[in-house]
């Protein structure tokens, strides 16, 4: 739908942050579920691939279980500090994406207004 290529990338970025936030929230919801393993997006890898331009600037992150987290006695490995930190981090990343989108529209609006 977006004609502006930058807007298209930003849309992908917002989608990826939303997806990641959903996984973080789901990890938080399952903090007391026995045997549950924390899941996350491989965000950095997806971002690198997008920068490399292999997928034509498309963010397509992969959902995977987080490795190397210490497991509790009930087999659950959700780390509350990690999740809370990531929750605010992703929230700010989303905010950044929204601000950039707003900036794009602002530019478009300026172009329209200055044309007459």
């Amino acid at each position, binding site marked *: 739908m977006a004609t502006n290529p930058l807007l298209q990338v930003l849309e992908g970025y917002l989608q990826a942050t939303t997806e990641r936030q959903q996984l973080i929230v*789901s990890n938080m919801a399952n903090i007391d*579920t026995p045997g549950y393993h924390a899941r996350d997006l491989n965000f950095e890898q997806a971002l690198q691939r997008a920068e490399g331009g292999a997928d034509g600037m498309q963010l397509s992150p992969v959902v995977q279980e987080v490795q190397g987290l210490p497991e509790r006695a009930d087999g659950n490995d959700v780390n509350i500090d990690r999740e809370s930190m990531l929750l605010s981090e992703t929230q700010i990343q989303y905010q950044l994406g929204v601000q950039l989108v707003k900036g794009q529209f602002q530019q478009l609006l300026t172009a329209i207004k200055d044309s007459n």
Partner: protein
Amino acid sequence: MGLFDMMAISASALTAERQRAEVTTANLANAETTHTDSGGPYVRKEVVFSAVTGSPFRSVFNRLGRFAPQPGSVRLTEVMDDPAAPVMRYEPGNPEANGNGYVAYPAINPTEEMVDLMGSVRAYQLNASAVSASKQMIQESLDILKTS
């Protein structure tokens, strides 16, 4: 999809944790209950949580309507009886006493229940803050409309 699903997931956790707190407080309230409708002392209850995994079938249902819970959410699947044997106390004057003068009390440790209750309260708070984070993100995305 997306932002509102996050709230649904957090809401499932709030429900599950509240139900857990309810069961725990029922255990605390009945720590000394020696007589129940089914006879014998009160039996300590325990909750079982399980994660909702996203099967393709379920996600199709999700798209059609809200028939199935959101994948990634949590739900209370079972309230189990604790198999621990009741604690026998020697109280010959008690009308509930058996032939030897012993009364069966539920095997409930109030300290354990209090710790469990604190755990569910903290988990509830955590998920409530996740809800406000989701809410703020939705508010921010609405801000895109306010450009000018």
